[in-house]
């Protein structure tokens, strides 16, 4: 399988580092299963670091949207960090930039959760 995912917990935020490809087949299935597993475990704050994702196809985008919808139904937040240029172009063309929260770095994505708490408070 050409996708490797490692997760870590940082102050109640789950950061999933993704490396490889998100494409039709094992990879997209594994990606979907990973998010499902996190949501079922009650994780509410998830950051996907896609800096090392070198390829995503249309199926991968579809799974990403499905994961976003699942997170929403679980009252969880899914954020993208290190979205690089070509990926960003696709998100823009499909208007998904208005749906996903994207950040230039993992730390910025993590900090955004803290800001959300302060605003809510």
């Amino acid at each position, binding site marked *: 399988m050409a996708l490797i995912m490692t997760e870590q917990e940082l102050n109640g935020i789950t950061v999933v580092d993704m490396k490889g*490809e998100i494409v*039709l087949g094992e990879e*997209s299935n594994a990606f*979907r299963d990973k998010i499902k597993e996190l949501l079922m475990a009650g994780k509410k704050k998830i950051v996907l670091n896609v800096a090392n994702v*070198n*390829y*995503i*196809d*249309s*199926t*991968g*985008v*579809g*799974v990403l*949207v*499905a994961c976003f*919808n699942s997170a929403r139904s679980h009252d969880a937040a899914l954020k993208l960090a290190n979205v690089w240029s*070509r*990926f960003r172009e*696709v998100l823009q*063309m*499909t*208007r*998904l930039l208005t*749906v996903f929260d994207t950040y230039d770095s993992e730390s910025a994505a993590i900090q955004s959760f803290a800001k959300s708490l302060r605003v809510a408070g």
Partner: protein
Amino acid sequence: MTLIMVPPPETQVEHHLGVLARTGVARPALEDALTTIVDAAIELTHAQQGVLLLAKSSGNLEVTVARDAQRVSLPLHQVQISSGVLSRAMGSRRELIVTEAEEGSSTARQASIGAPGLHTILVIPVDKLPLAESLDATVAGRQSELLAVLYLDSCWPFFHLDREALRMLARKVAIVVENAALFAALCEKARLDHEVEITGQIQRQMQPVQFPRVPELEITGFTVECHAVGGDCLDVVKLSDRCHGLLVGDIAGKGIPASLLASLLQGLFVTIGALDLPPEEVVSRVNRYLCERSPEDWYATLFYAILDSSGRLDYVNAGHVPALIRRCSGKVESLESSNFPVGMFSDAQYTRGTTQIEVDNFLLIYTDGIPEAKNRRSEFFGEAGLRRLLQEFPGQTVDDLAEAVRAGVRAFTEGAPQSDDIAVLAVHYRGVGNLSTTSVRPARAMRASNALGRSAPLVGRIHPTKRKLLKGDRPWHS
């Protein structure tokens, strides 16, 4: 007691291997091969009856072949196996010989094959062979996958039985079992490939073979497919005496699922488009239907437009690559995406854009197989390449334009293999009353052959595609 002289093990094994090899060539079916295996084991061990059990994915063992010493098949449902002896052999994963003297009266006298007097049982587990001999050392303690079990019965003890010969036989039969399974998998793949081909033929036959022919419009298109079936679609529908609906769609994914959804998408637009609705309402209804009926992570990008005979173009770009208009000045304008793809969000709102197409302008709607075509230096053709081609286009008809696009991409990719399907719809607006100054020629059918040499039927076809969003794909070849 008669002493049975057993030939040297290598002679026995090679003899039976020869039998297996000859039989395998003549009778490749798995069941036939397994029957030969059992017969060979019976002959090697001088057993009276032999059973082959295959390991299933569930972990259970299933009786597959049962033979007697006369090479007659026994009814499988009547075969009785000593579960105790079998379990012992499975536990040790080594061949096991159970005689009446060792076991006493209980286990050995379970009459494993049901015939009276049988009291010697030989069980040979057949394990999957490691990929390399070194794996035996590197994965010490890890059991190989169990493929099958040979279960042999005799009414006399297995005297002078060479265990090394038996292990060699098990090793050889593992190769046969695995090869037979591989062959069965190949046959199944060939069957599925054939079904895919049939599906592709049906899909192509469902498409229109001609575009509408009206004085003010000249329309043509082409597709170049990667596979037998897929998920690009295009169509042109006459909505009224004044209006035509134009559709180019790109379904996420590939293969049969994408092709099914492409057919559905095309049918929806033809049906809903005929309801005299504005394009944003058509797309919105299609989106709601698809969100209700399609798989969770499925979606499609598309460009849908209604072109009026006056040249007014009302369009909805739903996450699709921008359509391009080439003006008479040579300037190229793009009709960008401002909406979500369809099938993603059921509550998505769609907005339309409007532009005026002037006499002798060309409209080009396409799928991302064009801009994402890649050459041998891993450079993309890109939207920039397409815009340049349009700017420099010297032709006068849609046929000229379509051919220019095909030739341009082909030249750019330098013969590199095609990585994605391509769909192109080209429109030349000639104006009401035929104000066009270009020569009028009917839009002729265009043939495009793909990398596999198959001639692709033209406009209105559905083709397989996998929408590539990022770099790293196989280039285009026509």
